[in-house]
């Protein structure tokens, strides 16, 4: 229900999403379709006249979202590739290797680089191809265009400015159109703009009166208008232009414009004239570039790479100094002083030798930086996201037919390190579905349903309650109540039938709901300002008090069983006064007159305000009711108290005069009305109370429970009111009564008093001071508790207005410090901008990894601000999903996304990255050791091809397999032991310690491989006494190295699948196959026949067994000792479950909300006896951020339920799942 007003009024800056956008853009880092400056001038469109428009050369309607075309692909694609530092580095090295300073031939570096580039370009091409196909389907979808008095179906791409088109119901508008006529009376049509802004409510568009008639093709072909309008721009909510029709100039505004990307609803068809086409349409001009995010691990990786580069330089420096010292005339056989080829070894110019040696050695040692690292990581992540995350059956939501979707593959491992989750409430935690669940009438509690929380409580007591699916449960939207004692008139037999009657009447009369549709209980639909109200009225209907018609003065109720069972009668009540609900009053009253003249005031509201206004006496009932209220509140239900008061005509008349006076007063009307209301809302009689379940999304409490056990802190950021937010926080188990709650709210009497004085400056100052004091007080207390031994958990509740001041640079650090010591934080009544600000506060200030999850357009800011943005898909609009990095259908899938996919991705990526370092460092170090033996000349140890294929063939595949398949513990254990996730948060697997350890092993292994290989090189190694040359030795060393490095990977694995063995074996085999062929084919190489020579010696075999084992002995010892003395958690878990077979096919089972025994136990713990709750759970009405904005900016935008347009904008619930675009 958000934002319709804005678009209708064309950018009323107070209340429309435009305002949201503007305020967001002002924060500079969040971009929500920045409004571009308009091109000067205007365009003139001649409707229905292609020839006239031809002169203007408007763009066609074909769109292209591709990045490249056939010609630009190579240059542009390569440019993109070389923007990466790593690729640029290797390009430089490749260029260097063409110069004589290079010890290696160019192929050594060119081949891996081109392979890497090739793979990346293929990926780019593939992605672009998909975009192209998508464009093609859009461009080729058909639309009816007026030609020769007939509707001709032509593809979108052929559409031109000025064409007259017909769009049928549910069809998409092919371009930005001027609405000319509609089949609806009054030229009205409804559009859905979900693709544009994520809002699913319908928006109304109305054609100019002059053009209403052009519905039929014959008539429409007569239309010869001329449109003068602004140049294309990206502002969705503005439009200015004129229609010149029959020499008359009629202004047109956004109300007549239908935007491309929206679709037509509830209208048979419309006729429109094309104004903007293709890339000039507003939606295309709005296409936003989602800022690409890089994962923390990758940023850490950059640091490690920089370090490696430093190591590389050091190695080069050592070598270059050595080289400069070594060059000497005395090595006459080298003829160094003859500068025949270059100055490289000229002993007379040692500085040149030094400098050139640096270049030589950089080229030689370049593999220290793993060239295929980035492309391998990209590949792994791509497969992880497309094959694993997108295909996970655990994250498939069958009701909405939505699988999970990874929209970016950059952030998989970031999911394994999230410490803070920022969650939206409505639509994310809750279904925004209010259901009448329980009630208490005259002290008797009704309703047998149990909430999820109560179920947990029951289990603690050993009861096993299954959710009843009793046949007599009357279930419909808004009503989930099961108690035979009240249904079908059975209430007449209850101890207090009169009270029941009052209760039902109060429900049926005291509200501001509008009925719509045919007046039968089945077909009539209620339109209410809040779903709570609708739920209450629906409840009344189900109890037999069917409210079916409202006129400005009357309410019609069809009452059953009132006089006797089965009797149905239509009763009318005259509504004399409505005392509206607002957040200060927290109650709503109606004064009505019965047919027999009885005057009654019905009132419903928060328990606190109602109890204050009850007539004295009847304390027993009050006490029982209060206990029940507390029970309901504890169960996470939203409660309202119902009361009534019989009025005598005299009392009423005298009061009514005051009321009329107040109502007609010009100044301070609101306040005066409130005061007058106080006069009559007293001496009330308590009827009972209602408990409405703000239906949580499935599995939310257990998901939150699991996540918090994983060490993740969850913050709820909501536009709702404090009470609602607290209520949901209770329901989600984010807050409980054991926690110390800090509440910083602007809804205090002191603040209200200052506000009533109306001085803006004073208000601001006062609130700032209050917030400052509160913050400091809370902070001190929090510190006290944290450092104390009680171990009490803390929670912070803060509302948007206070947050605005708390986010002030002076207070920000206090706020941050306070909120970080809290285990849960609830921010209510926050604007989208504030959501983003809070997210950024934690992201930047605390340097923690954050995740935002939300479903609506108002969450876009925070989704983009967090490290990882998650959108809820399959429900509302697409805006949040479009801005997100991952889209899931349900909040509870976060468990799988984070604890399973995130954790695995993190583990795997850590393994992959560290392995890459290890293998390249080891390789380069053997080379480095050799430098000392060659007079620092930079002679290579290995053949060119060995070096170039080392990365791309002999060690490439196994690490990718590990990056895809390695699992420490399986998915169900990952969820069963959420604490395992902690290691990701602490970044236990990729820190300097890990890298350092690896480097040590690398040094050790390279020393072993190198020295063992050369140790016997001087002696003859066959019985024929022949001696091996350098290429024989290096081939033997390389063989050992390939075996060692590949086996080392196997040692890192937690699981060994067939693919591990195949890839590791295959890599080693690939080396042998390669060398068998290579040493036969290249006669001119030093390596000619080497492997055959080697294989004729026993030495090779002895070495090939000895070296890997000695090299890996260190790792083995380390791993064995580490596991024994300092086992990681996952290792213990592996051990605990070592005898359990892997559950294959578990994903086939529907994953419901079943609790595992462990979870149940946790629930039981959570529900151990504790201090009696003082939380009664009043919550009512969720005005959302929009009206909050309005009030904040001083513009009052009260919700008028009987607003005609709002009624029209109610979206009929479509039964079929949402049809995707095209």
């Amino acid at each position, binding site marked *: 229900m958000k934002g319709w007003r804005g678009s209708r009024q064309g950018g009323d800056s107070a209340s429309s999403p435009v305002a949201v956008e503007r305020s967001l853009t002002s924060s500079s880092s969040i971009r929500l379709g920045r409004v571009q400056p308009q091109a000067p001038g205007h365009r003139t469109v001649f409707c229905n006249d292609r020839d006239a428009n031809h002169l203007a050369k408007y763009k066609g309607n074909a769109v292209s979202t591709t990045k490249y075309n056939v010609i630009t692909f190579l240059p542009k694609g390569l440019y993109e590739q070389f923007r990466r530092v790593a690729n640029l580095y290797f390009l430089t090295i490749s260029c260097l290797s063409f110069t004589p300073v290079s010890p290696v031939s160019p192929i050594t570096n060119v081949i891996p680089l081109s392979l890497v580039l090739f793979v990346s370009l293929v990926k780019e091409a593939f992605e672009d191809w998909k975009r192209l196909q998508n464009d093609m389907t859009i461009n080729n979808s058909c639309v009816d265009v007026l030609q020769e008095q007939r509707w001709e179906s032509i593809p979108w791409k052929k559409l031109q400015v000025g064409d007259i088109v017909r769009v049928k119901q549910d069809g998409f508008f092919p371009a930005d159109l001027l609405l000319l006529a509609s089949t609806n009376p009054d030229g009205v049509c409804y559009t859905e703009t979900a693709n544009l802004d994520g809002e699913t409510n319908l928006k109304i568009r109305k054609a100019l009166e002059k053009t209403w008639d052009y519905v039929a093709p014959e008539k429409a072909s007569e239309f010869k208008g001329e449109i003068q309008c602004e140049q294309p721009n990206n502002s969705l909510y503005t439009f200015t232009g004129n229609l010149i029709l029959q020499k008359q100039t009629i202004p047109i505004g956004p109300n007549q414009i239908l935007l491309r990307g929206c679709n037509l609803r509830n209208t048979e068809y419309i006729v429109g004239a094309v104004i903007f086409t293709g890339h000039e349409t507003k939606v295309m001009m709005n296409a936003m570039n989602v800022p690409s995010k890089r994962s923390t691990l990758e940023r850490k990786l950059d640091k490690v790479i920089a370090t490696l580069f430093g190591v590389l330089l050091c190695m080069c420096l050592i070598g270059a100094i050595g080289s400069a010292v070594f060059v000497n005339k005395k090595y006459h056989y*080298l003829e160094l002083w003859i500068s025949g080829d270059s100055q490289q070894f000229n002993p007379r110019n040692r500085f040149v030798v030094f400098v050139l040696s640096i270049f030589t050695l950089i080229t030689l040692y370049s593999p220290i930086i793993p060239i295929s690292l980035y492309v391998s990581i990209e590949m792994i992540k791509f497969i992880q996201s497309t094959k*694993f995350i997108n295909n996970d059956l655990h994250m498939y939501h069958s009701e909405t037919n939505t699988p999970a979707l990874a929209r970016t593959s950059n952030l998989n491992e970031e999911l394994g390190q999230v410490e803070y989750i920022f969650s939206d409430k409505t639509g994310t935690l809750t279904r925004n579905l209010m259901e009448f669940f329980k009630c208490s009438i005259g002290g008797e509690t009704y309703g047998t349903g149990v909430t999820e929380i109560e179920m947990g409580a029951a289990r603690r007591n050993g009861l096993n309650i299954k959710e009843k699916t009793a046949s007599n449960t009357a279930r419909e939207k808004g009503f989930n109540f099961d108690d035979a004692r009240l249904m079908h008139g059975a209430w007449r037999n209850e101890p207090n039938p009169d009270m029941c009657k009052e209760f039902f009447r109060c429900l049926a009369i005291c509200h501001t709901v509008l009925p719509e549709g045919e007046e039968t209980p089945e077909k009539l639909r209620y339109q209410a300002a809040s779903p709570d109200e609708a739920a209450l009225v629906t409840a009344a209907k189900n109890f037999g008090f069917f409210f079916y018609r409202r006129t400005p003065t009357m309410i019609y109720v069809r009452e059953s069983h009132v006089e006797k069972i089965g009797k149905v009668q239509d009763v009318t009540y005259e509504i004399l006064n409505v005392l509206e609900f607002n957040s200060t009053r927290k109650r709503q009253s109606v004064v009505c007159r019965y047919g027999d003249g009885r005057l009654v005031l019905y009132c419903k509201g928060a328990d606190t305000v109602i109890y204050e206004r009850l007539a004295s006496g009847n304390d027993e009932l009050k006490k029982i009711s209060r206990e029940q209220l507390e029970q309901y509140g504890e169960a996470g239900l939203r409660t309202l108290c119902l009361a009534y008061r019989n009025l005598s005509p005299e009392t009423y008349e005298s009061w009514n005069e005051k009321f009329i006076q107040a109502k007609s007063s010009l100044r301070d009307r609101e306040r005066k009305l409130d005061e007058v209301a106080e006069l009559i809302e007293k001496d009330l009689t308590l009827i009972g109370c209602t408990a409405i379940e703000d239906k949580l999304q499935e599995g939310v409490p257990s998901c939150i429970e699991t996540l918090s056990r994983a060490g993740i802190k969850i913050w709820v950021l909501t536009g709702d009111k404090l009470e609602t937010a607290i209520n949901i926080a209770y329901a989600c188990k984010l807050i409980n009564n054991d926690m110390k709650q800090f509440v910083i709210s602007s809804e205090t009497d002191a603040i209200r008093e200052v506000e009533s004085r109306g001085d803006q400056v004073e208000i601001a100052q006062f609130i700032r001071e209050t917030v400052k004091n509160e913050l400091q007080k809370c902070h001190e207390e929090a510190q006290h508790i944290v450092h104390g031994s009680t171990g009490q958990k803390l929670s912070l509740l803060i509302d948007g207005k206070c947050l605005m001041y708390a986010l002030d640079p002076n207070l920000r650090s206090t706020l941050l410090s306070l909120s970080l010591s809290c285990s849960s934080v609830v921010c209510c009544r926050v604007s989208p901008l504030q959501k983003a600000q809070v997210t950024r506060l934690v992201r930047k200030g605390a340097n923690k990894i954050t995740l935002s999850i939300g479903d609506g357009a108002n969450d876009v800011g925070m989704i983009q601000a967090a490290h990882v943005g998650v959108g809820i898909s399959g429900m509302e609009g697409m805006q949040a999903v479009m801005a997100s990095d991952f889209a899931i259908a349900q909040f509870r899938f976060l468990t799988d996304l984070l604890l399973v996919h995130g954790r695995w991705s993190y583990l795997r990526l850590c393994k992959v990255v560290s392995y890459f370092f290890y293998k390249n460092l080891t390789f380069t170090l053997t080379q480095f050791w050799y430098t000392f033996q060659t007079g620092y000349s930079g002679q290579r140890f290995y053949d060119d091809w060995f070096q170039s294929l080392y990365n791309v063939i002999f060690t490439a595949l196994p690490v990718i397999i590990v990056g895809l398949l390695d699992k420490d513990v399986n998915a169900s254990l990952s969820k069963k032991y959420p604490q395992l996730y902690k290691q990701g948060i602490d970044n236990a697997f990729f820190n300097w310690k890990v890298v350092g350890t690896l480097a040590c092993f690398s040094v050790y292994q390279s020393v072993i491989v190198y020295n063992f290989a050369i140790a016997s090189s001087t002696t003859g190694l066959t019985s024929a006494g022949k001696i091996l040359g350098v290429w024989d030795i290096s081939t033997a060393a390389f063989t050992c190295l390939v075996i060692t490095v590949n086996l080392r990977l196997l040692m890192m694995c937690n699981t060994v699948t067939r693919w591990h063995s195949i890839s590791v074996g295959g890599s080693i085999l690939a080396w042998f196959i390669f060398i068998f062929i290579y040493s036969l084919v290249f006669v001119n190489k030093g390596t*000619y026949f080497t492997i055959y020579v080697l294989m004729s010696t026993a030495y090779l075999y002895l070495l090939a067994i000895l070296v890997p*084992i000695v090299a890996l002995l260190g790792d083995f010892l380390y791993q*064995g000792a580490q596991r024994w003395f300092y086992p990681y958690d996952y290792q213990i878990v*592996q051990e605990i479950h070592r005898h359990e077979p892997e559950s294959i096919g578990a994903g086939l089972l529907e994953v419901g909300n079943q609790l595992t025994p462990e979870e149940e136990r946790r629930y039981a713990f959570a529900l151990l006896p504790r201090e009696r709750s003082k939380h009664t759970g009043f919550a009512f009405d969720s005005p959302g951020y929009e009206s909050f904005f309005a009030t904040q900016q001083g513009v009052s935008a009260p919700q008028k339920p009987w607003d005609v347009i709002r009624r029209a904008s109610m979206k009929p619930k479509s039964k079929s799942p949402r049809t995707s675009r095209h």
Partner: protein
Amino acid sequence: MDQKNKNSKKPVYSKFSQQELPAWKPILTPGWVIASYITIGALFIPIGLLAWTASDSVVEIVDRYDEACVPDDFSKNPQSYIQNPNIKKTCTRSIKVPKKLVAPIFVYYQLENFYQNHRRFVKSRSDKQLRDVKAENDTKFCLPVAYDYDNKPIVPCGLIAWSLFNDTYKISTRGKDISIEKKGIAWKSDAKAKFGSNVYPKNFQKDGLIGGATLDESIPLSEQEDLMVWMRTAALPTFRKLYGKINTDIEAHDTIKVEIQNNYNTYKFGGRKKLVLSTTTWIGGKNDFVGMAYISVGGICLFMAINFILLYVFRPRRLGDPSYLSWNRHPIT
């Protein structure tokens, strides 16, 4: 129903996409660690012993002669001796044979501090030229020894060939010459493919500085085995090259006389020259390293196995003890 299935976006089940591929989940339990150590130890020690005994049975005689072969008058300035073509370079060494040398006995020369693996050296050759008579002009990497003064290509070109070792040895015992066979000292693959049978030395060591041995221009490269041996560049600055084979046994306690033509200039760069006589076995010449390495690794493994067993006894950790879980040790607050 069909329609429904068609529209369903439910992912298709596969073991791969659900990450449920059957896998072996090895856990490095103490048992595994100890067993592996014992296995390695049990395997390596016998292999090591085998290799070591083989190496031990090899008789190797090493005689350094570079210093001894310089006449005393030149000991201050050996270069003037070696570079003077007019001085006779013959030098006789007598070596005691400690153990019986069983044929075949291999004669090696060993050079030290000679950087055959220097980049400039390694690069300075033309494999094409060596192999193919038509490629005699392919000398682009041979600099600075590519062309003679008449700008004719040198075959074989390059520093390596140019610096060919040119000391010669004549061995006799009890006054009887022992013939040193020079055939079959190079790897067959070199003779067959890398050195052409129709490529003859040309313009070699003709002018300027002479680096080493000259080659008989009437013999094709494929039969110049000394060159082949020399050109299979060594990996380290200390290396041996096969000089020839002796096919008769030499008895223990015999004294052999070696007549050395001490031509090769190692004095300039302080290199050493050694003559090596050695027999071989299945692992080749004297090579204690492999045997020792196997034995010591085997020993270390057994030692580690014992250590781990002791640890297992004194500091046992029950497998899968939940009390080791970090959250059980320090509960998350």
